[in-house]
């Protein structure tokens, strides 16, 4: 197991290296010029040229790449072209809102999706099953921004239960923190609930048809015990995989939800950086995301051995 972990972590180094080079080159090949953006709408050609020079954008591409990679190896992601702040500082400012939203969404998703998925499988073919499936289809079909606006209209504007927008850090108190996360978490979790409930139902349904389930019933075990101890545990691998991918997607930026609810998370930072051609920020965010994805995938793989003793590394 230890060897496996070390091997996987070492494998991240070439992955991140390739991501770094790819992102760097892709950004330079994309139309747009940060100097033109920085100069402002009234900027003159001379001003733009001066800014390009000061940012080092006139250097040959390979020189720019070499300087950037050298700085990264020293732990320096550089400064944002716009804010003149360290990119690592900008990313750290955005981590808490993203993690908070991802965590509440995930908790809500697991608490709702797994039970209704199991229930739908257990009551296969009944109105409960059909209701869960109908919800699942609806959850996939309604765009996040539409659901967000509907919830805001109902619960923030018609009934003043929640604020329309904004984020409060947990340091401002637990209640203001959670109060502002309720609607965004519900909005965001619907699609994940739909997905995970469906996967749970399918996995549990498959397991329920196995011989050992019939044996368990024959031994006189209670339905709950059969369902939760035998069926769900054996159906857990695909469910955990989907949940893991969900976590990666949530951390990777939930741009629409962050925009609709005005949450200053990593998703919004990414979009702003892309629109502004803020190369150092985009590059750093993508490297961080890549690393997070790799780690989450590793954790998912490790969880398999806990859920299924037959899997060994």
């Amino acid at each position, binding site marked *: 197991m230890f060897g496996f972990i070390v091997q996987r972590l070492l494998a991240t180094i070439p992955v991140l290296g390739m991501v770094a080079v790819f992102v760097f080159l892709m950004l330079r090949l994309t*139309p*747009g*010029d940060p*100097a*033109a*953006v*920085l*100069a*402002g*709408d*009234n*900027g*003159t*050609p*001379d*001003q*733009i040229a*001066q*800014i390009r*020079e*000061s940012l080092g954008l006139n250097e040959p591409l390979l020189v720019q790449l070499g300087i950037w990679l050298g700085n990264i190896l020293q732990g320096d992601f550089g400064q*944002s072209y*716009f*804010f*003149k*702040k360290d990119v690592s500082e*900008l990313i750290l*400012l*955005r981590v808490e809102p993203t993690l908070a939203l991802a965590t509440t969404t995930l908790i809500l998703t697991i608490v709702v999706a797994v039970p209704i998925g199991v229930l739908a499988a257990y009551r296969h073919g009944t109105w409960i099953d059909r209701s869960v499936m109908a919800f699942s289809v609806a959850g996939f079909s309604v765009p996040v921004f539409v659901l967000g*606006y509907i919830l*805001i209209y109902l619960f*923030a*504007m*018609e*009934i*003043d*239960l*929640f*604020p*329309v*927008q*904004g984020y409060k850090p947990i340091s401002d*108190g637990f*209640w*203001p923190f959670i*109060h502002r996360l309720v609607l965004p978490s519900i909005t965001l979790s619907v699609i994940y609930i739909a997905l995970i409930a469906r996967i749970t139902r399918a996995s549990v349904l498959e397991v329920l048809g196995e011989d050992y389930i019939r044996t368990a019933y024959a031994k006189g075990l209670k339905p709950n015990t059969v369902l939760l101890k035998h069926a769900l545990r054996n159906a857990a691998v695909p469910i955990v995989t989907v949940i893991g991918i969900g976590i990666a997607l949530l951390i990777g930026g939930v741009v629409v939800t962050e*925009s*609709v*609810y*005005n949450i*200053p998370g990593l998703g*919004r*930072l990414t979009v*702003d950086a892309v*629109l*502004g*051609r803020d190369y150092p920020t985009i590059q750093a965010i993508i490297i961080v995301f890549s690393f997070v994805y790799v780690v989450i995938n590793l954790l998912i793989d490790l969880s398999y051995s806990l859920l299924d003793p037959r899997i060994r590394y």
Partner: protein
Amino acid sequence: MNWGRTFAKSAAKTALAAAVALPMTLGMTATASAETTLRVVMHSDLKIVDPIWTTAYMSRNYGYMVYDTLFAMDAETNVHPQMVDSYTVSDDKLTYTMTLRDGLKWHDGAPVTSEDCIASIKRWGSKDSMGQKLLEFVSEFKAVDDKTFQIVLNKPYGLVIASLAKPSSNVPFMMPKRVAETPSSEQISDYTGSGPFVFKVDEWKPGDVAVFEKFDDYVPRSEEPSWAAGGKVVKVDRVEWVSIKDHQTAVNALLEGEVDYLESPPTDLLPLFEGNDDITAQILNPLGNQYMFRLNWLHPPFDNVKMRRAALMAINQIDFVQATIGNPEYYKECPAMFICGTSFASDEGTEIVMKSDIAGAKKMLEEAGYDGTPVVVMQSTDVDVLNNLGPVAADKLKQAGFNVDLQAMDWQTLVARRAKKEAPSDGGWNVFMTSWTAADILNPISAAGYNAGCDKAWFGWPCDAKMEELREAFATETDADKQKTLAVEIQKRAMEVVTHAHAGQWYQVPAWRSDKLSGVLGGPFPIFWNIAKSE
């Protein structure tokens, strides 16, 4: 039955609201203070905190919070002393002597001195086009004493005071000497100003919120405030510029009282405020903004004046403003290139852009021998008030017989591409459209579009010696009437050779909580002094 349902619904709403709001209220009671905070949603994020380094309007708006100016323009476009107490001009019009007001301080408590102002003018003058023009005429700056300094010219220049009162980007803001000595090619890192607000750099969360606190030692003028001129009396403790990217969310936040002021809600969302007595949505800048139709002189077909004239004959103002703004309350057809209602406004020579003459344009194209060279029109797709300009321009040019290649792109790509001098087939361009705040284009020196200095001109690079002669004559003319005559000549010349076309005026409509705010002032930029807030 209906009554019963209504009652039940109302009771449920009240109970739910109470259940959720109670802990919130309790929490708020514990942290409540007497501090008044104005929460504002600006048109964009604050990114660059050096208003000399960039021309971005957000940086200009930031500048008006943190810095002050020697002179300032009022709502009638008249110029008044602001930091300056009094000034004199020598009989030969070569020496301007300026004395600063008493009590002016930087945010760190140090007094504002002549040396600070001289260094600030020099930094601004090395960056801004109007400042560069001014410095061409300056032979020397002299600090007479701590509060008095002189600007000595090598020959009379008619725009010395107007330059120092330039209301929009780049505004000649005064900075401490140690800050102003930063080369204009580098961004400053010391945010000390002498303006009515102090920038709280430690509370600045880029892309989220920028915080300003009242500067208690600011000494406002005694006159009534008007635009950037007059007394800048701050009546709130803090101003927070909150970043809300989604327009609908920003409007919802204003409706719910979570923010107090929106700088520029899109016009299609303004009906949401109708009938709401707590919210006022009103044009605060009567001069508004002007669309610009810009052609590239470097490449065919618009390297030929007849082709440019044909393009001008094809377009008209009303089609542009209807397609982008829509509501006639928020746009205006205006024949004056220097903005209707201002000192240099005139209708002369601009009939050509007021009504399309497609037949005339076709005839002109034929005379010019148009060979079907594709015309690349760049269309911005992510700025609400610009999005539809490209398709309208493309349509009018097609009607006239041009072979149009309309290319859609985001605004940041467009601003990068417009700087390219290459042929359109190699990544260059032929036509783009943009918008200027009126305060930027009130005279032919500050307005970049009239610069016809070939390589030194703004994107499109017009090249016309006569236009440059006229601009030079305007700059050196000190008589207001003669300046007006020259401005008219410049306008006529701009239409003759087609440096650009003015494609209609439009207005932003800020909205604010009138149940809480009073004293909201108009101006070519958002003004946050004089606003009082009741909680």
